């Protein structure tokens, strides 16, 4: 069994799987059980300032998107930060940390955007012996209307300012949690770095309306006939999160800034993918909310099994390994040619590849009388749609070796060449057309 121990900005945990700040980490009872189930760490549900806590709605707070067989693909929520008194949370944090010194325990914070508020809460957290703080600049609903959460996270200057206050007022490592509800994720990450953040974590939830009740004509979840936008999370958001993690990992300005990857992590494979794109560890919320704490056991066994197969001894061998392979479109090899190939032995003749290619792609699949489906190499542009829609995964892509003629274009496969030098590119030196007069 591979060694899964993780050291994230000096915070040690037996594995890289942390529970994200959310209902699973809202109280001592949950966190103790999570640790017992095997979670390497938790980020405690976001704490607010001292005084009367926030109140949540008492009607439904979640909406959902299902896949086949009511499998949860995405959840949206209109929950606020913890609605339990600050002193209760702090007392519980202290008690749990005392009993589980080997597990990571980070405390998420969201207080008003003034230095005094941050100065007031940080010593109280330090006193619990927690391992670090995470600044919640992410939640897109409710708290944002009060000038907190994503209202801060959408303004890089505020992120920088608050991060600096925190760093000046505590010795604890500081992770800045980013909101995806912004057009360029690199900007808030750069601001966090300028403010002195030890790491960023992302993504928080995505602004969303999951569904509309067609009897009441109101968004779900519906509270007394009305609804509001909420934060979207779960497997459906993973692609968005992966891209944002990669953007930060490969950007000049933020390269090397530790990242805690969040957003739709459901299996060991999701975790490994986040890590390959630069995340030092991952945080999980929806998978635990859907299946319970036990899911971590599959993540642990799966990641360790994968590392054993690959002969890896430390998770650091995965972290960032795919980052150099993330590039801009213009650098992709335009002389790389593949063709779809259908494995006739495994094909069940459903015709989905045919419908997809015939109706919406390149009319490159032939269907004969006995429902045998074959790819017409002279038409196939290798778009991959047939591979994507085949229910039994029996279509693969064959790479044409250099020198072989592509029957579609009649040209032999050549050496690497990309758009920057392509004759059709008006800004390339080889441009074959007529440039508009200067």
């Amino acid at each position, binding site marked *: 069994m591979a060694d899964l121990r993780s050291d994230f900005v000096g915070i040690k945990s037996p594995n890289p799987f942390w529970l994200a700040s959310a209902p699973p980490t809202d109280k001592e009872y949950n966190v103790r059980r999570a640790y017992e189930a095997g979670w390497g760490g938790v980020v405690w549900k976001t704490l607010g300032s001292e005084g009367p806590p926030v109140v949540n709605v008492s009607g439904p707070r979640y909406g959902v998107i299902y896949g*086949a*067989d009511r499998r949860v693909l995405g959840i949206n929520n209109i929950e606020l930060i913890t609605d339990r008194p600050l002193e209760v949370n702090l007392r519980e944090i202290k008690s749990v940390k005392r009993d589980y010194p080997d597990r990571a325990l980070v405390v998420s914070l969201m207080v008003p955007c003034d230095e005094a508020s941050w100065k007031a809460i940080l010593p109280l957290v330090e006193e619990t012996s927690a391992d670090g703080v995470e600044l919640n600049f992410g939640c897109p609903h409710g708290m944002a209307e009060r000038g907190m959460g994503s209202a801060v996270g959408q303004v890089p200057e505020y992120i920088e300012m608050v991060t600096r206050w925190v760093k000046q007022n505590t010795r604890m490592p500081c992770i800045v949690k980013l909101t995806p509800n912004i057009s360029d994720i690199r900007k808030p990450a750069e601001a966090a770095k300028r403010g002195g953040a030890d790491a960023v974590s992302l993504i928080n939830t995505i602004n969303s309306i999951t569904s509309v009740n067609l009897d009441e004509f109101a968004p779900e979840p519906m509270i007394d006939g009305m609804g509001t936008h909420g934060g979207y999370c779960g497997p459906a958001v993973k692609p968005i999160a992966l891209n944002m993690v990669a953007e930060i990992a490969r950007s000049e300005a933020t390269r090397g800034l530790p990242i805690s990857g969040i957003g739709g992590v459901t299996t060991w494979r999701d975790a490994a993918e986040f890590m390959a794109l630069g995340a030092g560890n991952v945080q999980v919320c929806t998978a635990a909310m859907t299946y319970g704490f036990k899911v971590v056991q599959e993540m642990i066994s799966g990641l360790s099994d994968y590392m054993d197969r690959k002969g890896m001894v430390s998770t650091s061998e995965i972290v960032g390994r795919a980052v150099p392979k993330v590039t801009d479109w213009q650098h992709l090899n335009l002389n790389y040619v593949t063709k779809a190939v259908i494995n006739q032995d495994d094909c*069940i003749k459903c*015709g989905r590849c*045919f419908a997809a290619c015939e109706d919406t792609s390149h009319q490159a699949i032939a*269907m004969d009388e006995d429902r045998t489906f074959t790819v017409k190499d002279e038409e196939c542009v290798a778009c991959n749609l047939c591979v994507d829609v085949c229910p039994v995964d029996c279509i693969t892509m064959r790479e044409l070796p250099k020198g072989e003629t592509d029957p579609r274009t009649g040209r032999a496969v050549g050496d690497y060449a990309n758009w920057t030098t392509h004759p059709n590119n008006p800004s390339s030196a080889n441009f074959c057309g007529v440039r508009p007069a200067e």
Partner: protein
Amino acid sequence: MTNSQLTPGVVPGRLSPQEYSANFVDVAPRLSAHEASVAADRCYFCHDAPCMTACPTSIDIPLFIRQIATGTPEAAAKTILGQNILGGMCARVCPTETLCEGDCVRMESEGKPVEIGALQRFATDTLMAAGRHPFTRAARTDKSVAVVGAGPAGLAAAHRLAMKGHEVTIYDARLKPGGLNEFGIASYKAPENFASAEVEWLLQIGGITVVQNWQVGRVGDGTVTDLLAEYDAVFLGMGLSGVNALNLPGEELATPATDFIAELRQSDDLATLPIGRKVVVIGGGMTAVDAAVQAKLLGAETSTIVYRRSQGEMPASEHEQDHALGCNVRLICNAAPVAIHAVEGGLEVEFARTETTGAGLRKLDDTFRLKADQVFTAIGQTLGATPEELKLAGGKIAVDGAGRTSLARVWAGGDCAVGGEDLTVTAVAEGRDAAEDIHQFLMGE
């Protein structure tokens, strides 16, 4: 109750009331909404779907399943019923394993098809439970059509013709409409009087008059010629009202299985229905299986099907054979009856072992006798009397693709006509297609 499974002879009341009702419940009860949504999610929405090609009525299966999956089972029902007005009965009685489900691509990938029949029932039951009839009649034409037989073929033809605006009169020899849906199908496939409820629902289209106890050719009723004088066209869907004879010594000691089943189907109290302690059924098709199984369910101690060829050659599908074996019916193959003997305390059926040679089936000298209290024959049904002018082919009414017979203005479909398997769904398809052709003919005039 003094009788038991061991009481000798042919007696009623072998079981307790609880046993009767447990034995004759719905074999495949309706799916719950949850089960339906799980089952519907398995459909791949195939292109030019093989299941649809395999359905004799060409129901758009991927479409109706998608309609169930998206929470609109009544729209699904309309998709089904638009092609097959008896989609409710077909969902219960079609041998799906040899039709749509047999060709489902999921057979190829997992050996488990999408449960098309069960989903079809879910959709059609939902609509029928709401009491809705989803079709309306076109403007009235001045044409009228006589339909002979209120079985699946006749009902499908009548509904389609009425929908097109024609006036339809159905003439049926029995006292109740439905044909074999009412008098033949095994009771556990369509319990709770589904057949008659479905006919009532079908007739909601309007424009159809049903005349019962009127047999074409019977003195006092009328002939096809009479009908042609009164109507613009005639559709014959009279099924197969005769049965093949055994042509053996003692054959009068046996009963046609179809008579036994018809009596069973019409019984209000199964406990009053006499059944033998030892039952022997001669045959190998769906009727043989249904008779043997239902004899067993009525409390026969033993129920044995004896088929003259090998098990693999049985016309009853594998699924039906399994059902029979699961009900503890015994199956003897490669044995042909030679005589039925009345003996002390009951009957004995004498069989000869058989073998199949290049020249066909041959009886061997090796014989054996089976004790029986009741013997049923299920060796095929035959066409009843038809007008002499009507051309036959292989014992059935000769028709072209659209159901046209050799007589002008006369169409035929279902079991009485050549072509297709003798199944409810085939009868529906033929009735529907003949109706379309009749409509063309009437409107083209």
